[in-house]
């Protein structure tokens, strides 16, 4: 039997080899006459062993590139080769073993910890192996050489050899896996049997050795391991071109052993790395695989392409892992595994009509109505006209969507047919031929048919549809019998895995957030809080109890502050008054001293009780502890305020409140109702809330979700509104100070869609005084802040809407204070024309109007110079609901425009805000 097979083997190998006949022949010879050429061969062995690796790589690369039918086969060949080689090498002298060690060591770095563990141990064991091998290896050396040669030849011979070696040595080594790896496994199955019996003396020796050693399974195990190392080493060199990302294929440790801890538990569940095939027990899997960001891969395998043979198991994990991590985590990992980019089919390994796919083509192929099922790396042919799809050299296996722009023109021999009948320029196979005959189509005289996607066929050169192929019932039956494809009416039947493939990319995308975020930002006193509150009232987002309570606190505290300011003023008034009285009394000395006294008292002085309250309050304000005491102390001091309010002296001062510059304008609104507000049961009305300074005591971030109600006002834009009535907006109001120095925290708002920057128009003559006593114009400060916001990287590319607030106050102020007070506006010199001919725009626009336009243009120029984009400007009066509504709707429009940007020219739209500015 063996001799028969021996004679067969070289032949078969020669057949299966499509190259390097010499090698295979040499190999076969070596096997046969092991003795004679020893003297010649031995010197070659050592150098070859070291140098052969690179040369082998070159050869393999060339092969894989030029001859594409091999990629599937090669790994197996190699694997077996290496097993073989390793085996033989172990029988060799210790010198080669050292080389081996180096190899394995060099490899350790890449393989990672798991590999390292092995390598260390394998070192020991291989020594032992080596010794054993030498003891027995009388005939070893020549065989070694033969084996080595076989590996380089990458012949099938090697495969079968290695295959049965492993069968013999480690009885449990998975033949199945190898078969998995190779679909060719079946065809080799035949070979493996004969070779088993055929295998040369050394293989038999090994078998003997194993059996002789009885229970020393570990030896076997580590042999495998080592083969694994050398092999992986080889793959590093051999395969960089075809599978650049492919990890070393870890050959399995003996079945049932964990790759990490090497403990044996045949029955405990294990998880397999989808890249290298290493198996881990439940104790080690977490440490070896970590958090599994790309699914079940060893940490060192992360980033590498998965083993294609394991593609089917993507997303399916063992029960052990489920138990270990829990459902949630598993779900997460499995999703990651399926959707991770690295785990996708490598498009460049899929050839359609000899052309490797690009990623776009792959996506197109997978997302078409009828995608090819079970797409694997390999070569396919595709008939673009009819949609026939099959593996290169095989009959069609499926009919996919036609007319996909994938691959080159189909080759005539794509399906390796020999019937001389052509369909769409492809010579059809026997099965198809029978199918055509079954369909009653005459195929005499080597006809050339054109078959379209719907099955209608015609002869080449004839503009006449002869019939529809798929309409015939017999065709369906014949197709089923011949396992030929039949077009499916239902799209995507049974294409689950493809679904997975294509959907996974989308599934990872975070759900689209339809919320539009408006960031409202501004300096102190720029009215952002008013706009915010106005928006809440406008779009009916009621204030919660807590918020009301908060605002109540703010209002009450402010009230005390106002009172304190008035009281402070009183001191001044009182002094002035005293001086005046003294002067008066000096002017006309008389007996009316007592009445003077009364007069003075009546004017600005308090009763001792109020006096003490007054000084207490002032002291609090001075020490900055007003806020600590006040919200809490309202109960106590509420009657005091009432008393104070009723006091004539206080009223007298109150009448002169306009002389107190520190008192803000809104103070009047609250002071008029001081008694009511100071009460404990005071409930702020909406108006009160609107007028209150600030939103919360801390003046932090406030946000509100709202949607624009349909209003009659925007009838003109109704048509465009229809498609997004429910888009919700979020208005986020941020105080400048809460962004920190250099706007450090602005990055928190990187997801906003529109930035609304609010500037108070009245700022132009107002000043800050910082701690150094340096006065800064508020408008300039606002400008500076604007610059820093606009140029902040976080907000680059965002749209900006400038709101010029407090227009009502500007109208008042502009009459008193010229705009040129601010350096930035020094060239504002409106020509007040009295000519009535410019009647188009509200007849000679008022000064405030012009000032507004001027300021708007200044800001626009600034913005333009900073970003080279357009700034949108809106005018606003915070206390008027309508104007706030208008401004926010304007913001909404800006967002809409930005969406429509591609179709509509922006310039056109923005003229609305630009055109008045040009009129100045």
């Amino acid at each position, binding site marked *: 039997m063996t001799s028969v097979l021996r004679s067969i083997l070289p032949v078969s190998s020669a057949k299966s080899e499509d190259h390097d006949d010499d090698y295979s022949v040499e190999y076969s010879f070596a096997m046969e006459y092991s003795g004679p050429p020893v003297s010649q061969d031995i010197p070659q062995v050592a150098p070859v062993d070291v140098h052969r690796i690179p040369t082998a790589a070159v050869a393999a690369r060339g092969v894989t590139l030029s001859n594409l039918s091999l990629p599937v086969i090669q790994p197996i060949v190699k694997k077996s080769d290496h097993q073989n080689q390793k085996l033989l090498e172990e029988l060799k002298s210790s010198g080669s073993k050292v080389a081996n060690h180096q190899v394995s060591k060099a490899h350790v770095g890449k393989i990672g910890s798991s590999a390292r563990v092995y390598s260390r141990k394998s070192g020991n064991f291989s020594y032992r192996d080596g010794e054993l091998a030498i003891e027995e290896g009388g005939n070893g050396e020549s065989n070694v050489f033969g084996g080595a040669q076989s590996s380089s030849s990458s012949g099938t011979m090697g495969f079968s050899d290695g295959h049965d070696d492993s069968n013999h040595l480690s009885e449990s080594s998975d033949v199945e896996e190898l078969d998995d790896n190779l679909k060719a496994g079946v065809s080799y199955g035949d070979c493996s049997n004969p070779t088993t019996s055929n295998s040369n003396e050394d293989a038999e020796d090994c078998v003997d050795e194993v059996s002789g050693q009885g229970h020393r399974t570990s030896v076997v195990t580590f042999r495998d391991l080592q083969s694994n190392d050398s092999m992986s080493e080889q793959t590093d060199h051999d395969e960089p071109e075809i599978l650049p990302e492919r990890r070393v294929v870890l050959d399995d440790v003996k079945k049932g052993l964990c790759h990490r801890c090497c403990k044996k538990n045949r029955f405990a569940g294990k998880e397999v790395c989808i890249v290298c095939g290493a198996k881990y027990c439940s104790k080690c899997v977490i440490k070896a695989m970590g*958090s599994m960001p790309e699914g079940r891969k060893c940490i*060192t395998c992360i980033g590498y392409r998965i083993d294609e043979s394991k593609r089917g198991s993507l997303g399916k994990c063992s029960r052990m892992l489920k138990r270990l*991590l829990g459902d949630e*985590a598993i779900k997460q990992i499995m999703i990651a595994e399926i959707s991770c980019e690295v785990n996708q089919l490598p498009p460049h390994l899929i050839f359609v009509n000899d052309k490797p796919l690009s990623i776009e083509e792959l996506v197109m192929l997978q997302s078409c109505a009828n995608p090819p099922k079970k797409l694997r790396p390999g070569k396919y042919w595709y008939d673009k006209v009819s949609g026939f799809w099959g593996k290169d050299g095989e009959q069609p296996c499926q009919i996919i969507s036609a007319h996909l722009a994938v691959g080159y023109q189909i080759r005539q021999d794509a399906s390796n047919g020999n019937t001389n009948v052509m369909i769409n320029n492809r010579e059809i196979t026997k099965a198809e031929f029978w199918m055509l005959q079954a369909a009653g189509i005459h195929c005499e005289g080597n006809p050339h048919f054109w078959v379209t996607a719907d099955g209608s066929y015609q002869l080449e050169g004839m503009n006449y549809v002869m019939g529809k192929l798929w309409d015939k019932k017999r065709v369906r039956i014949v197709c089923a019998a011949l396992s030929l494809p039949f077009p499916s009416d239902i799209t995507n039947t049974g294409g689950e895995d493809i679904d997975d493939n294509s959907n996974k990319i989308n599934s990872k995308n975070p759900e689209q957030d339809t919320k539009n975020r408006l960031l409202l930002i501004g300096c102190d006193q720029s009215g952002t809080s008013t706009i915010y509150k106005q928006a809440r009232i406008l779009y009916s987002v009621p204030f919660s109890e807590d918020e009301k309570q908060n605002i109540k606190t703010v209002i009450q505290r402010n009230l005390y502050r106002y009172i304190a300011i008035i009281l402070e003023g009183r001191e001044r008034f009182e002094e002035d008054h005293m001086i005046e009285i003294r002067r008066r009394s000096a002017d006309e000395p008389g007996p009316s001293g007592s009445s003077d006294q009364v007069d003075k008292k009546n004017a600005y002085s308090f009763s001792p009780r109020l006096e003490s309250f007054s000084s207490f309050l002032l002291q609090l304000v001075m020490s900055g502890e007003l806020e600590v005491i006040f919200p809490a102390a309202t109960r106590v001091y509420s009657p005091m305020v009432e008393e104070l309010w009723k006091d004539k002296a206080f009223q007298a001062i109150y009448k002169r409140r306009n002389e107190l510059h520190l008192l803000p304008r809104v103070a009047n609104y609250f002071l008029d109702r001081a008694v009511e507000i100071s009460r404990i049961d005071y409930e702020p009305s909406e108006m009160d809330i609107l007028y209150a300074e600030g939103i919360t005591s*801390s003046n*932090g971030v406030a946000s509100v979700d709202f949607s624009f109600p349909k209003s009659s006002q925007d009838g003109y834009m109704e048509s465009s509104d229809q498609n997004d009535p429910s888009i919700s907006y979020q208005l986020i109001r941020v105080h400048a100070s*809460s962004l920190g120095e250099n706007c450090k*925290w602005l990055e928190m708002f990187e997801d906003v869609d529109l930035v609304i920057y609010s500037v108070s128009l009245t700022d132009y003559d107002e000043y800050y005084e*910082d701690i150094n006593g340096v006065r800064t114009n508020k408008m300039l400060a606002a400008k500076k802040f604007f610059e820093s916001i606009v140029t902040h990287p976080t907000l*680059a590319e965002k749209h900006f809407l400038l709101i010029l607030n407090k227009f009502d106050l500007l109208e008042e102020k502009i009459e008193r204070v010229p705009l040129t007070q601010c350096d930035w506006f020094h060239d504002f010199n409106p020509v007040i024309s009295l000519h009535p001919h410019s009647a188009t725009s509200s007849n000679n626009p008022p000064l405030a109007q012009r000032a507004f336009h001027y300021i708007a243009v200044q800001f626009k120029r600034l913005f333009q110079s900073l970003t080279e984009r357009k700034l949108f400007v809106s005018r606003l009066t915070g206390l008027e609901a309508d104007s706030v509504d208008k401004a926010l709707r304007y913001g909404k429009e800006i967002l809409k425009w930005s969406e429509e940007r591609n179709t509509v020219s922006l310039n056109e739209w923005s003229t609305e805000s630009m055109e008045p500015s040009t009129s100045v």
Partner: protein
Amino acid sequence: MSVLAELKQRHVAATETLNALKAKLKQKRLLLLDTDVAGYARSQGKTPVTFGPTDLVCCRTLQGHTGKVYSLDWTPEKNRIVSASQDGRLIVWNALTSQKTHAIKLPCAWVMTCAFSPGGQSVACGGLDSVCSIFNLNSPNDKDGNLPVSRMLTGHKGYVSSCQYVPDEETHLITASGDQTCVLWDITTGLKTSVFGGEFQSGHTGDVLRYVTYLFSAFTNVYLEMISAAFLASMFVLGFSVSINGSNSRMFVSSSCDSTVRLWDTRVASRAVRSFHGHEGDVNTVRFFPDGNRFGTGSDDGTCRLFDIRTGHQLQEYSRPHGENEVPHVTSIAFSISGRLLFAGYTMVIAMYGTLYWQRYVVFFSEWCFNSYRPSTVMNVYMYDALFTFQLKFLNQQVVLNLGSLQTSHYGRISCLGLSGDGSALCTGSWDTSLKVSCDL
């Protein structure tokens, strides 16, 4: 007017004197640094820690946030993590199983910091709403299924950038805020116990000097500035981060955008015990060294530094090589239990045609080259003290392991990191919305 001019003059003169003194101090300090720690360590036969790529393995990815993760904290004993994210949630995780035990919806989504109480019963968070909110994890959910806020600590006038519980005190918490103050809170009452820094020194004992100071300022801010520069020493603290000394909970350090770090004693609110200069950018993070006599800082200038609180010296500077225009900021640091390792989270900005990239690094710096880095061998306190008889000089730092090179790294900027109580695991939070827990094998 003449008074003002005179005051200004005096102010200028005082500033000059101050600067001269500072320079002198610096010089003196440099003179005192005469020994090289690296050399010393070498002479002791200590070798740098080495790490293999798989020695620190990312074991868990905690996914659940939908926004950038800004902060995280571990419970001191159990393996739980609280994380704060821009999606407006705090999530309490079990780091072992990666399960979420609580998801707390926050009233304000812009949260910057979070902390676990020492007992693990409650969590605190703070952010742009200028409020520090305390959640009791044991309280029942309200009708909307949200965990109610059990206490709001209001009073800050700027964002709360950092909060931390006083070790072993469930009821005391220190916050750092953008209003340039740090505040020690009593959680049970919700009131400030003391305020550190800021313009007005607060506290419940008003003292005359302070009042005088205030009156001064009422007349002239200029003069106040002078005084403050001289002895208030904390005028411009923009608190970013605060760390409380583990061994002496009365001491804490705060770091600031004025590129200084200040050491405070909670019993003395009026002024900082010491301020530490050296950084050339905002100091984003500060952590006490395990022995409590040193602390580490991380800054926008791309360096981490180690300072000694007793001498005020900078002991060591750790920096990575980087290009001219791309200084990676240190966002967060942590020390290993033994102090042998310093973990630093980096960001890197590459400005390119107006677009912004964030790259991530987790870099491990080799540090004191003494014992094993293992948490079990905490001999370092002794070692350091012994060492301190020598004056220290900067030693050569060495990157032990760059986690960023591993594929287990984040896809976004790393914003925070923290070491578990027993030192066996490191958690990092990132702008890629996930947290990762790495275990030391």
